[in-house]
């Protein structure tokens, strides 16, 4: 579904990703761990095609097609979707109207209301302007609803568990474990809280713009919880050395 080859990405003049290789198969859910500033969100944005994230070298293949040069909206229409970590506020645009439009453009129709119900998004929440005055949990749920309203082939979730209380985390986790069946996904998480409810098949640890380590998500997470990301740094140094 997704294949990333030797990806180098710069934001303004600063090189953030320094040769990432990654492969996510059909229907596979992968998780990306990494300390703050390691390039996790940059990787998400580069896959989505955010214009501020410049691909310096390397390739992104999606669904068998090289999308490295494709603009963000085209990638979205091909089936890549993202739940942003820090989305902007959209004054004057009501959540319900936006969701309905995304759903109708992607042939999802009224089915988006099922997503809304499962994510416990209230009518009142739907009638508000997108991300204006939303709580942390409301933002996450609204992002996931939008990302899924287009019925994507590949879903990228950028920190779906940050700034979310326990109840919301459980709700989001339960919903995702159901919605990610038969769908490829890349979940970016710093703390790994979401893994209490989801069982990805593979984890990748991103350190300083490179994949430092890959393997079983639970094993890697418990090691990170015990020793912190310093463990990975040492590991990478050892491997590199």
């Amino acid at each position, binding site marked *: 579904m997704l294949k990333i080859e030797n990806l180098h990405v710069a934001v303004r003049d600063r090189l953030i990703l320094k040769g990432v290789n990654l492969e996510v198969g059909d229907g596979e859910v992968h998780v990306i761990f990494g300390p703050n500033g390691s390039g996790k969100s940059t990787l998400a944005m580069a896959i*989505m*095609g*955010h*214009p*501020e994230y410049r691909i310096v070298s390397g390739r992104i293949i999606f669904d068998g097609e090289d999308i490295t040069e494709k*603009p*963000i*909206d085209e990638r*979205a*229409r091909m089936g890549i*979707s*993202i739940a*942003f970590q820090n*989305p*902007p506020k*959209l*004054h*004057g*645009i*009501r959540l319900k109207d*936006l969701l309905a*439009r*995304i759903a109708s*453009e*992607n042939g999802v129709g009224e089915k988006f209301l099922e997503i809304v119900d499962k994510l416990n998004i209230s009518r009142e929440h739907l009638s508000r*302007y997108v991300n204006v005055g939303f709580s942390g949990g409301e933002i996450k749920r609204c992002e996931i609803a*939008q990302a899924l309203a*287009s019925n994507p082939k590949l879903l990228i979730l950028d920190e779906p568990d940050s700034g979310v209380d326990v109840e919301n985390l459980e709700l989001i986790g339960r919903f995702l474990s159901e919605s990610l069946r038969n769908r490829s996904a890349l979940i970016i998480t710093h703390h790994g809280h979401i893994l209490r409810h989801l069982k990805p098949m593979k984890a990748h640890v991103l350190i300083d713009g490179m994949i430092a380590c890959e393997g079983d998500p639970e094993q890697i997470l418990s090691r990170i919880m015990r020793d912190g990301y310093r463990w990975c740094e040492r590991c990478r140094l050892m491997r590199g050395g």
Partner: protein
Amino acid sequence: MQIDEGRLREALGKPAEHGEDLDLDEFEREPGVRAEVDEDVRRRSLEVGVDLGKASSLTTFLQVDHEIAYRAIQKQFQGDIELMPIQEAVEKHPWVREHLWSLVSPYADKYTAYNALKSAGGFFLRILEGRRLHMPIQACFLSYSPGIIQSVHNIIVAEPGSEACVITGCTMRRRDQRGLHIGVTEIFIGPGARLNYTMVHRWGPSFHVRPRTGIALDEGAVLSYNYVLLGAVGSFQSKPSAVLKGGNAAVSMNNVIYLDGSSRMDLGGDCLIAGRGCRAELITSAVASGRAKLAVRGRVVCEADDGRGHISCRGLMLSDEAEVYAIPELVSRRMSASLTHEAAIGRISEDQLVYLMARGFSREEAESIIVRGFLDVSSLNLPSFLEESIKKIIDLAVKGF
């Protein structure tokens, strides 16, 4: 009020304080062609939210050029309101004469003076005491004959405890038509009365508009005064002024503007808080495209205890040749007053565009979604059919963008 004709003739040479000065001699006094209420007129009226065909409102008033072409009040509401041509009202109720020119000075400028000397038509609307009307009252003014000055004088009296929603649509038969619309409107809102007064205007690039509005609010009166202008206008200048006389009165003036072409618009709002605990709000959302130039002047003066005032202007620039000029003014004469203002003018944010594009919308679609959102009228508490029709007009206006 006694009018001094000599002073009026003198005032005919007096330009308005703001906006482009017009030579009234360049316009026609009388219509050159006789108007007909045909499909064109019906369609234009509908574009400004006034439906002449349906029973979607409890009453309808249509003036084409100088003539009252149509008026109807649904039977069951005849004891709730009065709606008639202003001349008829003056004859029927002598007290109406006292209201004329009591909130707008006829000597203010050449437009008020012209109106006082040569007003032709306008409506008198009275919502009787304690009546609460849940269907809108509609009035429409349409310029038909090319080059004409349409000069009307309206009086609205909302009696104590009444509630109503009034929609006035102003437009013209052909978009390329020349002309001038001078509308003097005096609005009296009695104690505890609530009025939603919404104007929807569509003009053309050779049409000039000079509304003159005065508003008085008694104790506990509430007014939502909404002005929606979409598209092009040759020149527009207006500064409605409200006096909040009674305690705890509230006025909210909301402007929703999408200006294109070479339009010139000078839009103000002036509120005087003279009663204790009153609130005044002036909120403008304006989109400027093409070579349009827009000035937004808001002024709140507080002379009574516990008054609150707020001015907000949000401008969205769609072109480097357009201009938005925001001039908020706050004057406080009370320690207990709280007056604030905010203004923000900018372009469409790249973050918002990218966000929507990540949902699969093209750049053009994303821009249009943002512009429509910027002009959102759903917070104005309008009847749903009017909200829908304004949305449609907005869709048309921003289509090319």
